């Protein structure tokens, strides 16, 4: 294995309540293109962040050229020959292309204490040539297209080449999710060129692309590497099976409690669209129903959820609640129409960490707990205590600070808030993200409670497994459009592979 330029040996990493990486080993050989795939939450991002020096492993080692290294910052990773091209682009739009490529390395271009722009631009032109990008180094990045910025970012990673003598490894995190097919082709030809100088780790949801460009593929699931296959021997179907792994557990998702949807349509979307995010989305949501939305990053489902919750405005189509046309200009409109969002970023939009449990629970219905302008603290406490008991929230008291509770219990507080506010539609955006397995089952139980009480749920699950297990109907989205709809009655769940076909 003297050929290995980057090795990860038995690396583990735990976060409170979650084991993100469990004894992961991973090797990149010189000139190799490695595919790294797995569902959301499989541990890919954590592994990348360890390689990029953002996180440090709890156990295990990272080796570059056979020597163990400690990567304490992205800068150190960069200097060790590991460059990351981010999914969320890190190109600063106020700077020029050249300034972005050499951000943080201006020292190299100083003359009399000032930056020698001409020399920097000349150096940048060399890097741009490597990615076949035909733009001037002095162009402000604000004028570039998304794809061009991605290329600038890759050029930035490649600039390592001229800087360090050792081998370089470039980590590409979902580089194609924003690219058109022509641009993907260009990227692939660049990757093939690069193989002479660098090794590549290619992370993508698009399995066909992974198969097309990679030499070897690692599949991750639940924080572990579950398969390592040469691309020549792999098929999309086989990779799916590795990614998904286990069969559906009917009991895990409380399938026996899944009720058939009622007759009454609560929420209806007609040709809903938002430029650059999704288009022509139509559906009906009935009382007692769980409508799952499946799709990868970039499918538009996150934006759709935000539009339905009033956090963003659609630019096409119509929404009706109980047959009434509504316009949601803000979250307050959505709440007034009985729609509540349980956000993925719990501590940002879900709750006020500094508030007590009771204060968070009544936040959306504060007016009801006041008479003549004064909060009825006793009534508020009593209502909060009722929900703490009903949802089994583990908290010292209703006066305890919510920020001190575990993720699962915080999630219950958010759910209690919406139940107290009396919403009819709950949008659950990754409701089990970052909470441990036991608490996940609690959340599944709560979803069944919610629908049993006649509410409707729109679910963006953390995994496809979860979406299938919980939903009574599944909307599949790809590149902003609905590509399929599946009925998922209890006992008649669609197969993952069939849904995946419409997702990627």
């Amino acid at each position, binding site marked *: 294995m003297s050929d290995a330029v980057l090795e990860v040996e038995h690396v583990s990493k735990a976060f409170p309540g979650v084991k993100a990486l469990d004894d992961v080993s991973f090797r990149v050989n010189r000139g190799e293109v490695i595919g790294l795939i797995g569902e959301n939450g499989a541990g890919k991002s954590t592994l990348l962040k360890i390689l990029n020096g953002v996180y440090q492993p709890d156990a295990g080692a990272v080796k570059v050229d056979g020597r163990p290294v400690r990567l304490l910052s992205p800068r150190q990773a960069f200097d060790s020959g590991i460059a990351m091209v981010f999914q969320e682009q890190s190109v600063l739009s106020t700077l020029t292309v050249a300034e972005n490529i050499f951000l943080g390395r201006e020292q190299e271009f100083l003359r009399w204490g000032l930056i020698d722009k001409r020399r920097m631009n000349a150096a940048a032109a060399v890097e741009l040539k490597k990615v076949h990008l035909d733009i001037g180094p002095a162009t402000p990045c604000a004028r570039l297209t998304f794809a061009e910025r991605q290329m600038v970012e890759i050029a930035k990673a490649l600039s390592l080449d001229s800087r360090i003598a050792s081998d370089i490894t470039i980590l590409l995190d979902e580089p194609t999710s924003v690219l058109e097919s022509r641009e993907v082709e260009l990227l692939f030809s660049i990757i093939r060129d690069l193989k002479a100088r660098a090794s590549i780790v290619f992370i993508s949801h698009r399995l066909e692309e992974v198969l097309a460009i990679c030499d070897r593929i690692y599949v991750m699931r639940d924080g572990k590497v579950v398969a390592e296959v040469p691309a020549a021997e792999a098929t999309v179907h086989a990779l799916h099976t590795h990614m998904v792994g286990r069969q559906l557990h009917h009991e895990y998702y409380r399938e026996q409690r899944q009720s058939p949807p009622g007759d009454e349509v609560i929420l209806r979307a007609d040709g809903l669209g938002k430029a650059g995010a999704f288009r022509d989305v139509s559906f009906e949501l009935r009382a007692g129903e769980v409508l799952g939305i499946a799709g990868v990053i970039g499918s538009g489902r996150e934006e759709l959820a935000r539009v339905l919750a009033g956090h963003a405005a659609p630019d096409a189509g119509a929404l009706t609640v109980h047959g009434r046309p509504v316009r949601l200009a803000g*979250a*307050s409109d959505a709440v007034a129409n009985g729609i*509540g969002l349980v956000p993925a970023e719990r501590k940002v939009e879900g*709750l006020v960490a500094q*508030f007590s449990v009771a204060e968070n629970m009544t*936040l959306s219905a*504060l007016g009801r707990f006041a008479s003549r*302008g*004064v909060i009825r603290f006793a009534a508020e406490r009593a209502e909060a205590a009722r929900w703490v008991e009903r949802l089994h929230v583990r908290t010292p008291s209703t006066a305890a600070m919510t920020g001190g509770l575990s993720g699962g219990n915080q999630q219950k507080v958010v759910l209690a*808030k919406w139940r107290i506010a009396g919403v009819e539609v709950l949008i659950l955006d990754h409701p089990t993200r970052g909470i441990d397995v036991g608490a996940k089952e609690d959340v599944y139980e709560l979803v069944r409670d919610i629908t049993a009480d006649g509410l409707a749920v729109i679910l963006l699950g953390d995994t496809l497994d979860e979406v299938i297990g919980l939903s009574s109907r599944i909307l599949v989205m790809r590149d902003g459009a609905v590509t399929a709809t599946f009925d998922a009655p209890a006992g008649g769940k669609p197969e993952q592979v069939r849904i995946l076909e419409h997702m990627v």
Partner: protein
Amino acid sequence: MARIDLQAWLPILVLAALVAVVSLYDPGFFTIANLLEITANTMTLFLMAAGLTFVIMIGSIDLSVQSVASMASCILAVFLPTLGLAAIPLALLGGVVAGALGALISTRLRIPTFIATLAISGVVLSAGFWISNAQSIAITAEARDAWLGWVTGAFLGVPNEIWVGLVALAGLSALLQLTPFGRLIRGVGAQEQAVIASGVRVERVKLWAFVISGFMAALAGVTMAGRLGSGSPTLANEFLLPAVAAVVVGGTAITGGVGSIWRTFVGALIIQVVRIGMTFMGVSVFVQQIIFGILLIAAVAATMDRSKILVVK
């Protein structure tokens, strides 16, 4: 928890220590009459700082308070002879309008409150000059006795300014502690996005916070004019820094979310005792703002957990 408790009590301990130190130097300091007078002298600063507390608690800032107070004093002095008692609500209305404008500019145009209120401050300052014709306007003794007795007189041997301050303390504390509005003020300061996502119209909460700030600044200006017997477009100059310092020294977090009116009350008294202490030790009035500046920075440094703040702008 121990740290939080200490932070809550620290301002009172500091105040007690300061009073003790000054008393040692000046035996005449620690007498009922003197303490009453000092407290009375603190009230204009407290009124202004109490309103400002709402704005700082939502994580914003109102830089227009001193100009608003000056303008209010001018409105009062100009209109008292003709309008009589009605000049007082008119002066307060000026503050309300200035506060509301600052909030609307900030929320509608999405401009940081620091810029919006800095701009309003300039407008209001000029308005004061315009109303007063750029000069100090005396309030006659008769007018003062007729309309401003609630400021200048005394009740039960206690100067009325203190009563005004105590009423403001009780009223604003109740507003902050007991009402949904007060709850939302804390929520907006602590985690605005979560409050928005909960369906609260946060712009309204902000609007009211700034209206209260403007109203209290104007009330401070009216009180000041009553005490000094005149209104002037520069009456409250040099009040902004001590007012912000009073809020923060009292233990209200400059980042929002945590704070109370009684803390600001204690903070204002600390500022006042420091001022008196400095005067007593012969520190020039002109140097005092240096001390307030240092005090402000020290208080923010002591009360804020800066390790969690990623970027300071």
